[in-house]
């Protein structure tokens, strides 16, 4: 296409005058450029801004930002930090690329196409909020609060989650951090020691560190890793139980290549051996134990031989671990783990870990499980309101809980099943906030069907993740570098050092770009439109943080003055609380119809020709959240599948071969990845990094890069006590050049 004239001729001609005036009138003058006094070259100020708290993962390291002329050019650990210090990880560094990612959501979008196959139209905030408020109100009017469900994740999702839970009154809330991650750990420890354990193990001062499935070095949280490495530097022995020779296994004194799914049998074998040989801490158990007799009797069948057979290990391997632990008790770190939703038999395994810690007397001692005492800050949010109609999907018709040891919220499958069947009631409104249920929750087709039947789906995120394709209205949220919210508190990470506490709060390092808004603004505006204006607890996110800091006698201004972090004297963490006890046999669990003594329940074996698909973290990505980050993608663009080298030889596969997968339900992976052959993995399983292969073409970097492991997790397992998902009970074969290759498992 070319015009008849040249530019010069046109500019010289009379035609210009004829069109220039009407044209200039027609174009609204919304100029962003203005005349200003001349500035000398190089006058852009360089400055360091404090108050950053990372959220490239959920460990939340303390940051400072280096800025030049309003542009954030670098992130660093806050030098004042006694947590991460000046260190941040690869992901933390790459926060810059999230902030300025061209694919990031920028304006409210309305889907004028269909769910799952969207056609986006930029709309105004007013229109977007009206639509969200009115549609959710309509669902509430027609179906009640129980007609709404919420999938929230991350610190910005707390405020909207509380609004829907406490004010509107829906219990259909399912957080990935509970039901697809650590909820099982928390409730299992609560049922054993009365507290959620966190990752509060005093590794720097341990003589032995025991990791079951934990792969530190692949899973990086800076101060956590510092604890671990300091422990190793101080001479702690490391035991790693993992079907795979992980980064941690590579540093271990003992690597236990356990058969997947049998961890509880392994722990029972150890515990029974410790009791039978009187190598446990009898004094500790006498003083703090409850139900020890029933416990000892309940697990007495677990001879080393039986455990070895169940776990595909030798007696010697288990005995060696047990002796090393006993010889160094009580200064042993039995790590509670973090992502523990594995096989659907996980609650009993997590109970076993807590009981083992008790047998070794390793609570509140140097090197053991020690919850440091941190400072208190406020927790302002929506108040709990009375609701006329109480409902709970977790209750059966006899008012008994299906999953009595559920973490807060409602088990995901109960919500999804209710939505799909309309029983006991329909669920027609869906709010998704910072969570990507397509790549987080097993059964992608099920999730899509749940979304298909909704009257309204709203999604809030910073990136166009896979779930956002299913939204009717998609709202762009500010990132952690552009908002106020999270208050991070804690103590110095090495508990043997001078006792100190710290308080820091997330403050924006840069102003929000485009039309991105924060959680308090969005939630309040929706609340107004749903008729809950009077319940709004706080006007802005900044006010919320101020009020929460007030409880500790602080303010944002004060924090800024102190370099973003307030430090005060701490308290001795090793004092055992008076009421502490370890419930070895738990009667409540038994009364609820589950084993009150930790019990091993075998999981399904891989069918012939298949191997179990296990997955985990890679050091440069966080779940599926960072897959579009261009720096992190460059560091690890795909998720190679680990395959035992002997099997690979039999299958005719070598390193770098491109393969896809088909699972036991005939579901094929959409994309491919490359083979990594290694002697460091058992023959009954294959392994890959989680969170690759986005299906959303809006993610120009992450789309189709690597294989989406969640897409292959179609068989849904649920842990009976907690209702959380077990996600490693799916089996795969390989596909190469269109041909399916069996995995010779019995080799």
């Amino acid at each position, binding site marked *: *296409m*070319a*015009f*008849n*004239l*040249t*530019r*010069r001729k*046109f500019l010289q*001609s009379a*035609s*210009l005058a*004829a*069109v220039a005036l*009407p*044209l200039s*009138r*027609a174009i609204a003058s919304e*100029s*962003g*450029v*203005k*005349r*200003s*006094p*001349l*500035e000398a*070259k190089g*006058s*852009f100020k360089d400055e360091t801004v404090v108050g950053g708290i990372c959220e490239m993962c959920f460990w939340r390291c303390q940051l400072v930002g280096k800025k*030049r*002329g309003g*542009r954030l050019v670098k992130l660093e650990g806050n030098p004042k930090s006694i947590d991460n210090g000046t260190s941040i990880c690869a992901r933390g560094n790459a926060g*810059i*690329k999230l902030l*300025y*990612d*061209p*694919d*990031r*959501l*920028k*304006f409210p*979008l309305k889907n*004028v196409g269909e769910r799952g196959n*969207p*056609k*986006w*139209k*930029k*709309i105004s905030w007013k229109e977007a909020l009206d639509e969200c408020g009115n549609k959710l109100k309509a669902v509430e009017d027609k179906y009640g609060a129980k007609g709404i469900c919420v999938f929230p994740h991350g610190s910005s999702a707390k405020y909207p989650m509380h609004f829907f839970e406490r004010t509107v009154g829906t219990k259909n809330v399912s957080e990935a951090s509970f039901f697809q991650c650590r909820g099982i750990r928390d409730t299992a420890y609560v049922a054993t020691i009365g507290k959620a354990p966190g990752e509060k193990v005093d590794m720097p001062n341990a003589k032995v560190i025991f990791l079951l499935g934990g792969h530190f070095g692949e899973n990086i949280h800076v101060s956590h890793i510092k604890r671990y490495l300091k422990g190793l530097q101080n001479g702690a022995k490391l035991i790693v139980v993992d079907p795979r020779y992980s980064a941690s296994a590579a540093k271990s004194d003992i690597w236990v290549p356990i058969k997947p799914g049998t961890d509880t049998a392994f722990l029972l074998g150890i515990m029974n051996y410790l009791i039978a040989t009187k190598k446990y801490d009898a004094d500790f158990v006498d003083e703090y134990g409850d139900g020890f007799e029933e416990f000892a009797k309940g697990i007495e069948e677990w001879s080393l031989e039986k455990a070895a057979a169940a776990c595909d290990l030798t007696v010697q391997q288990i005995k060696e671990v047990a002796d090393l632990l006993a010889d160094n008790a009580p200064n042993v770190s039995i790590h509670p783990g973090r992502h523990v939703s594995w096989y659907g038999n996980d609650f009993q395994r997590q109970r076993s870990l807590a009981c083992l810690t008790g047998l070794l007397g390793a609570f509140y001692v140097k090197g053991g499980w020690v919850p440091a005492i941190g400072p208190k800050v406020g927790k302002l949010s929506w108040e709990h309101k009375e609701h006329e109609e109480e409902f709970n999907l977790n209750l059966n018709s006899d008012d008994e809980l299906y999953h009595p040891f559920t973490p807060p919220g409602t088990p995901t499958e109960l919500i999804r099943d209710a939505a799909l069947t309309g029983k006991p009631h329909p669920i027609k409104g869906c709010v998704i906030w910072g969570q990507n249920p397509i790549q987080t929750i097993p059964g992608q087709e099920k999730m899509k069907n749940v979304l298909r039947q909704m009257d309204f789906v709203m999604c809030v995120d910073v990136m*166009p993740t896979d779930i956002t394709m299913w939204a009717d209205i998609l709202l762009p949220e500010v990132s952690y570098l552009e908002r106020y919210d999270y208050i991070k508190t804690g103590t110095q990470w090495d508990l043997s050092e001078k006792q100190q506490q710290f308080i820091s709060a997330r403050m924006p390092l840069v102003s929000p*770009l*485009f039309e991105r808004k924060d959680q308090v603004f969005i939630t309040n505006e929706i609340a107004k439109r749903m008729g809950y204006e009077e319940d709004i607890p706080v006007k802005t996110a900044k006010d919320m943080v101020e009020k929460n800091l007030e409880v500790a006698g602080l303010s944002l201004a004060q924090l800024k003055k102190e370099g973003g972090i307030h430090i005060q004297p701490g308290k001795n963490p090793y004092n055992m609380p008076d009421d502490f006890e370890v419930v070895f046999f738990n009667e409540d669990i038994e009364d609820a119809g589950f084993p009150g003594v930790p019990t091993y329940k075998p999981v399904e074996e891989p069918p012939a020709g298949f191997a179990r698909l296990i997955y985990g973290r890679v050091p440069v990505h966080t779940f599926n959240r960072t897959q579009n980050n*261009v720096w992190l993608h460059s560091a690890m663009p795909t998720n190679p599948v680990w395959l035992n080298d002997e099997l690979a030889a039999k299958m005719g596969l070598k390193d770098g071969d491109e393969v896809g997968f088909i699972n036991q339900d005939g579901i094929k992976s959409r994309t491919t990845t490359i083979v990594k052959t290694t002697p460091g993995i058992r023959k009954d399983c294959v392994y890959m990094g989680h969170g690759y292969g986005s299906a959303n*073409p*809006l*993610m*120009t970097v992450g*789309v189709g890069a690597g294989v989406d492991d969640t897409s292959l997790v179609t068989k849904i397992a649920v842990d009976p006590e907690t209702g959380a998902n077990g996600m490693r009970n799916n089996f795969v074969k390989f596909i190469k050049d269109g041909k399916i290759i069996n995995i010779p498992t019995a080799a």
Partner: protein
Amino acid sequence: MNKTYLESLYALLDALGGEKEKDAIDTAIKKSRDFLEDLQVEYTRLFINGIPHVVAPPYGSVYFDKSLQGKYAEQVMHYYCSKGYALTDKADFPDNLIHQLEFLSFLAEDKDQESENEFLGTYFLPWFETFSKLVKKEAQHPFYRIIITLIDFFTKEEKEYGVQLNEA
């Protein structure tokens, strides 16, 4: 998008001998149920978040630095400042296409031909070339193709005075 705007655009196209272009827009309007929504959807797809991916982000940094607000944006801002211009508070990034065109229009007003040429050659054209190719190739609505062609027309030097494009 209103009647005056369309009339003015048509007048401009007439003056340039752009009959085909005028017809294309006219046809699109007649065929459409909601012309404005068509434009909004296409705008979103081309410049904001599009399927299969955003076609042509209107920011120079994306082409130079593969990032929003990259170093290039800073350089452009420096250039504005060096000529006595700044951005208003509500402005987008300095390297936004609109702001660069606005800046050029100010320079034209100032009759500062030399700076115009320098800015076009050093900052604007090297990425606009790629940008405009993308839009012309991918746009599914004639409106954007035509607007980009107009910008192309008004910013490109004639061959004999042409600047050397930085193809890298």
